[in-house]
């Protein structure tokens, strides 16, 4: 059970447990579980349109999840992907809004830089607090999420407010057509190209560079890495900032592409889903790509469920939460272990 195949198997089993638990909860609540699973499959994967939707939701998740993979591999529990995603989107919107009128080949690269910097800087302060004074990053990044969410509400109803907004949910002015990298609620070749490039870059970084090897060791055994003369704090900081920058990149893509504007409370579960993807993929870059498309499909189906099948969209939240509950489990219950002929690891 300890090889890569065993890990994939284990992850699949827990994903199935999550799905089953959700099905049971649905049946108890008086809905039809088979109808739910059928609708999810239809909404996620059973047509070309569904695949496009899955990619539309999955690709930004893939970028954020890559960020989570990198910082988790360094051994730092950066659960602030949501806040970093928001901060990247906010910084990108400031640039694209402030430079409106300038030629696109100037504005778009600057917007991307701003998004990367926004996410990276929002990850920098918890990183600094962690490596300089040992402040626990779980709490600081968690609080960072709430602060960023409130900041998003503030900028969309203050400095970046769309004056012609209807007042429903506060949002910024729509990004001008010339700066868009994709149509509304759709994938585009540009977004796919960015994701493929970043994915390859992340794979090389994690598997083929000194940083990748050292950070992976640091996540497993920090003391050994220190004894070998590597700077743990520098590795950790780099992990934080890279992770934040990738979340910020995802935010930028959402603003320039599918969503096309900044709106308050947009994609509130993005960061949590990204963490889940990284864990289901067992922190492997390649696996992250596939898992991200799967969870993108779930997200797409979540929009489809209430409209076409009349089922509550909360189904997707429950599936995600149930998977999160079980995905990090490292041991089977004793009886099950006997059943599968597997020895239980040390207590």
């Amino acid at each position, binding site marked *: *059970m*300890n090889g890569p195949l*065993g890990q994939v198997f*284990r992850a699949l089993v827990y994903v199935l447990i999550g799905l089953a638990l959700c099905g049971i*909860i*649905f049946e108890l*609540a*008086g*809905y039809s579980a088979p109808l739910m699973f059928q609708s999810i499959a239809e909404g996620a994967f059973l047509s070309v349109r569904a695949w496009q939707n899955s990619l539309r939701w999955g690709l930004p998740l893939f970028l954020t999840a890559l960020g989570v993979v990198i910082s*988790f591999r360094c*051994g730092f*529990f950066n*659960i602030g992907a949501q806040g970093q995603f928001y901060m990247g989107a906010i910084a990108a919107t400031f640039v694209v809004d402030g430079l409106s009128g300038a030629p696109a080949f100037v504005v778009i690269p600057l917007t991307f830089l701003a998004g990367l910097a926004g996410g990276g800087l929002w990850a920098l302060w918890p990183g600094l*607090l962690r490596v300089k*004074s*040992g*402040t*626990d990053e*779980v*709490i*600081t990044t*968690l*609080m*960072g999420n*709430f*602060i960023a969410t*409130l*900041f998003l509400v*503030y900028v969309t*109803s203050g400095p970046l407010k769309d004056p012609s907004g209807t007042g429903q949910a506060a949002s910024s002015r729509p990004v001008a057509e010339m700066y868009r990298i994709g149509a509304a609620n759709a994938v585009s070749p540009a977004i796919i190209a960015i994701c493929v490039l970043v994915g390859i870059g992340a794979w090389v970084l994690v598997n083929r560079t000194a940083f990748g090897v050292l950070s992976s060791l*640091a*996540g*497993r*055994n*920090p*003391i050994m890495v220190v004894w070998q003369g590597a700077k*743990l704090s520098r590795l950790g900081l780099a992990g934080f900032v890279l992770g934040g920058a990738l979340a910020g990149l995802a935010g930028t893509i959402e603003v320039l592409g599918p969503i096309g504007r900044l709106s308050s409370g947009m994609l509130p579960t993005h960061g*949590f889903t990204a*963490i889940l993807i990284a*864990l289901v993929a*067992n*922190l492997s870059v390649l696996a992250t790509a596939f898992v991200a498309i799967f969870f993108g499909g779930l997200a797409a189906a979540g929009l489809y469920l209430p409209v076409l099948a009349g089922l*509550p969209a*909360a*189904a997707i*939240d*429950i599936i*995600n*939460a*149930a*998977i*999160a*509950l*079980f*995905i*990090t*489990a*490292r*041991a*089977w219950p004793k009886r099950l272990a006997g059943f599968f002929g597997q020895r239980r690891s040390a207590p």
Partner: protein
Amino acid sequence: MDDALVAILRSGTPLVYVTLAGVLAQRAGIWHLGLEGLMIIGACSAVVGTVQTGSLAVGLLIGIVLCVLASALLWFVIEILRANPIIAGLGLTGLGLGGTDLAVQAIYGSQASVTAPFGLPRLGPEFGAFGVLSVLVVLMPFVVFGVWVLVRRTRWGLQLTACGEHPFAARSVGVSPSRMRLYALCLGGVLCALGGAELSMGSLQIFAYGMTAGRGFMAFAAVIFGAANPLGATAAAFFFAIVQALGIRAQLLFGDKVPHDLLLALPYIATVIGIWISGRLRGGARAATAFGELRDY
């Protein structure tokens, strides 16, 4: 002045109950990030149970039972399946948020909120401005004291602390850390149900989706801020409540000069600063090794 005190007690009490639950879990050695989920389960079942059965006691009881069951599930996942407590806790929170949403939709259709016909018993008009406070507010100091006695003045509390600080030592004198964690989590489940009930039934008598709004995480921060000491953590919870009340007050005083949403962020900023200072005073927090374990299956 009385009004300010009432406002602080009202917003602080749910936080204190949930914080005490976090203290018990923290003492037992579990970072409890499922507090938010337990709290909303408590808040939801108090209202829905009261509406469906017409009895407040049954509503509260349903909340307590569900929270204890959810806590036991978390314990099973963490201790028996040996999952990472932080991710499992976040999963429980998601399950609570999604599950209450689903329950409300299943029972009442696509309705944004549920209103209970009556709330928790109040003190009554003879207490003046304090008459609007519910019995759970009055009970709160005694619960805080009770948890303090339990944790700091009993054999059980000492064993519990040992399980968190040095499980090996606890095991060597015949105390099962795993079982102690189950007790601590289940007791915490009861407290979370009470905190959630106070939130939904104490002043508003309403349940709305996501009404906990991060209070469970704030309670967790108070646990860390207060070094898992019942009294310290209670003080931290009240500190957050006071900061929140000050934010609302400042908005009334300064009006448009200070943006409202940034004031709402004050408790979170205060938490970060508080954790940072307490970390500096007491030396670093968890070692960086904690997460690495997760990957070595």
